[in-house]
């Protein structure tokens, strides 16, 4: 391991993290819900009366965020190296996995850990571990 000092952005990371925390705080204190994005989306598959509008609104907020950001600063271009097959496989795994696992980085990682939930700690360690292992296999064993 070498530390990628040129990519490391400590202040932007902290600032962005605080914003994410503020968003989660807003969501729990105003809407009474955990900002678990896989769950917010997942609930749309079993739409119940009164349960749809806020979900769509949250998703729209995420999708509209770049437009809002662009009013104030230049949007950084994301670097997405995955090809079509990888994207389809990754998406499918994330879709199935987050539902069985009852959460993702926002639900378990941010909110669950903030709630001091042992269940979320286990989930976070599991997906972090799997993420580390996957990148290791892809980049250092298979060598893509």
């Amino acid at each position, binding site marked *: 391991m070498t530390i990628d000092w040129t990519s490391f952005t400590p202040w932007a990371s902290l600032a962005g993290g605080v914003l994410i925390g503020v968003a989660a705080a807003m969501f*729990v204190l105003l809407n009474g819900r955990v900002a678990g994005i896989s769950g917010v989306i997942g609930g749309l598959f079993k739409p119940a009366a009164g349960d749809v509008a806020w979900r769509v609104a949250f998703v729209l907020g995420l999708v509209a965020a770049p437009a809002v950001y662009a009013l104030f600063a230049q949007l950084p271009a994301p670097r997405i190296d995955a090809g079509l097959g990888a994207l389809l496989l990754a998406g499918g795994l994330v879709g199935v996995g987050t539902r069985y696992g009852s959460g993702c980085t926002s639900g378990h990682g941010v909110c669950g850990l903030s709630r001091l939930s042992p269940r979320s700690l286990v989930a976070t360690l599991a997906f972090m571990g799997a993420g580390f292992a*996957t990148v290791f296999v892809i*980049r250092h064993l298979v060598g893509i």
Partner: protein
Amino acid sequence: MPVLASLLAGLVFGVGLIVSGMADPAKVLGFLDLAGHWDPSLALVMVGAIAVGVVAFALAHKRTTSFLGLDMKLPTARHIDRRLVGGSMLFGIGWGIAGFCPGPALVALGMGQAKALVFTIAMLAGMGLFELFERRKPMAPAKT
């Protein structure tokens, strides 16, 4: 009002993802690449988010309603089972393949990234598969 609050929370969350660099899959994969050039940024994002989140959720746990008068709907599940761990691992694998999880994918979608659209469609398909599997079988007891 709750729908507006939800939209706002999604917006702030999305802006936080952009500011922190977490909407950039290459940056996320840089954190997951422990054996290579390791970018610790994501760890600081979590620190920032959880620092705020801990305070917010401590307050939320003391309430039965949100500040908008909605029921406080915090997850109550406590069991740690194969679904949680297995699902989380599957999610982590998908995350490690493309560097996308649900929130960042939606933000990248909002940036007009075609690859994010592919990922999101696959993710929704995965979630749909989960719903199909769940609706077919009768409720199974949680395995510990």
